[in-house]
């Protein structure tokens, strides 16, 4: 079963410092979101930086997909779910044109 969260949407404590994750979790969070389709894969032929907004959008997409409180922040409940063993297929499949779309 997924980790449960006591944070409800709009809960002010959801993004409190105590509820945020470490840089290591942040990095693995980025890898996770990329691997499972919530963020676009980096283009190897072009240097690219991911903005905070894009990263948070990826978190938000993951939270929406799994019906977690949608904070856009990599909080503990989100990170806990990401740590569960799982299937290797992406949750969101890229379309032929490279855009991401739930299928």
């Amino acid at each position, binding site marked *: 079963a997924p980790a449960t969260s006591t944070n409800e949407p709009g809960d002010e404590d959801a993004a409190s410092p105590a509820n945020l994750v470490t840089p290591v979790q942040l990095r693995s969070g980025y890898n996770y979101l990329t691997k499972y389709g919530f963020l676009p894969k980096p283009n190897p032929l072009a240097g690219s930086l991911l903005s905070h907004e894009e990263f948070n959008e990826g978190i938000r997409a993951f939270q929406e997909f799994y019906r977690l409180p949608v904070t856009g922040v990599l909080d503990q409940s989100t990170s806990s779910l990401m740590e569960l*063993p*799982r*299937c290797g*297929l992406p949750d969101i*499949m890229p379309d032929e044109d490279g855009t991401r779309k*739930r*299928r």
Partner: protein
Amino acid sequence: YAHTGAKWDRREITWKIRNYSPDLTTSEIIDALRNALQIWGDAIPNTFRRVHVGSADIEISFSVGLHQDDYPFDGPGGTLAHAFFPGDDLGGDAHFDDDEQFTVNAYEGTNLFIVAAHEFGHSLGLGHSSEITSLMAAFYQGYKPNYELPYDDHVGIQSLYGARQGSIPSLPDVPIAGAPPGPPRPDLPVPNTPEPGPDPHCANSYNAIAKIRGELMLFKGKSFWRMNMKGEPLEGYPIDTSRFWDQLPVKLDAAYERIDDKILFFKGSSYWEYFSTNRDPSFPHPIRELGLPDDIDAALPWGDTGKTYFFKGDLYWRYDEIKKEVDSGYPKKVADNWDSAVPSNMDTAFRFIDVETKTWYTYFVRSKKYWRFDESRGKVDKGYPRSFSEDWMGC
């Protein structure tokens, strides 16, 4: 559930084991994989045939790290397995990370049956579901003995391949198809305050509504909706009636579950009997053999009394299911013995209980409106008619 856009276009799907994991005996692996396929095969009309030589639609292998596809495994934990959607070459194949400790029990390691059942869902064309309790949710959820395919997956796979005869998705707490109906549950909803439903495909009116196995089934044209015991429309509906009830005519006049658990459907001058989803091959029969007129509007079974009310126009008949005849003195005028507010030429009627007040209500539906008849007072409540789709379907 999510479809990927891919599916097998043949009924028989072949599978093959390319190698085995050292974690389990050969027979344990074969049984786990066969059972994992069969949990899907029990829901859909397709069959799975194991082959030992040549290629197969679903080829199964155990490997670690890089293994000749673009998706290397990552050691213990993390990714457990992956599979490819239906198609040529790798399509359908399932790969298991042999760095996991695969088991066949519920208490330790990673249960191979559960992982395989999930992967074979991909092999058949399902993507990951956002319903976290479903088999097709991406996360490993452990194994429970006597595992049953969850509702979300059941509907998802049947909407791709159709339903195996008699295979009806069951919700938790919902009696299985074919089981006799129990007494009214104490936790039935307050009917006039249903939860808003997520299904956007609401109809403006319904041909027939029947309480079957405790659930409300709402029929319109060739489709039906399903409402669980909490009065919530179920996701994934409407679907074609033909996926549950073989050869059922469209645009029904009426439907009800009889005291002997048979399900009866009426249309025009004929009626059909089904047990669960199986049609009695001797049907249809003419409605007139019941002593009723053609083209009835509604059928309303009255609890376990063995009496069923049939409505047409402004008249109603009381039918004795034991004696198999209409009681003497019928038909009577609806307005005389129910309430003058009850609509004539109704579309359908059904009963539901308000658990808070322990009051049974009869609901009469015509076009977009419904009337609530308080059985204890013998009157239609004030404030009615109201919008059926708004109150019941959350539209």
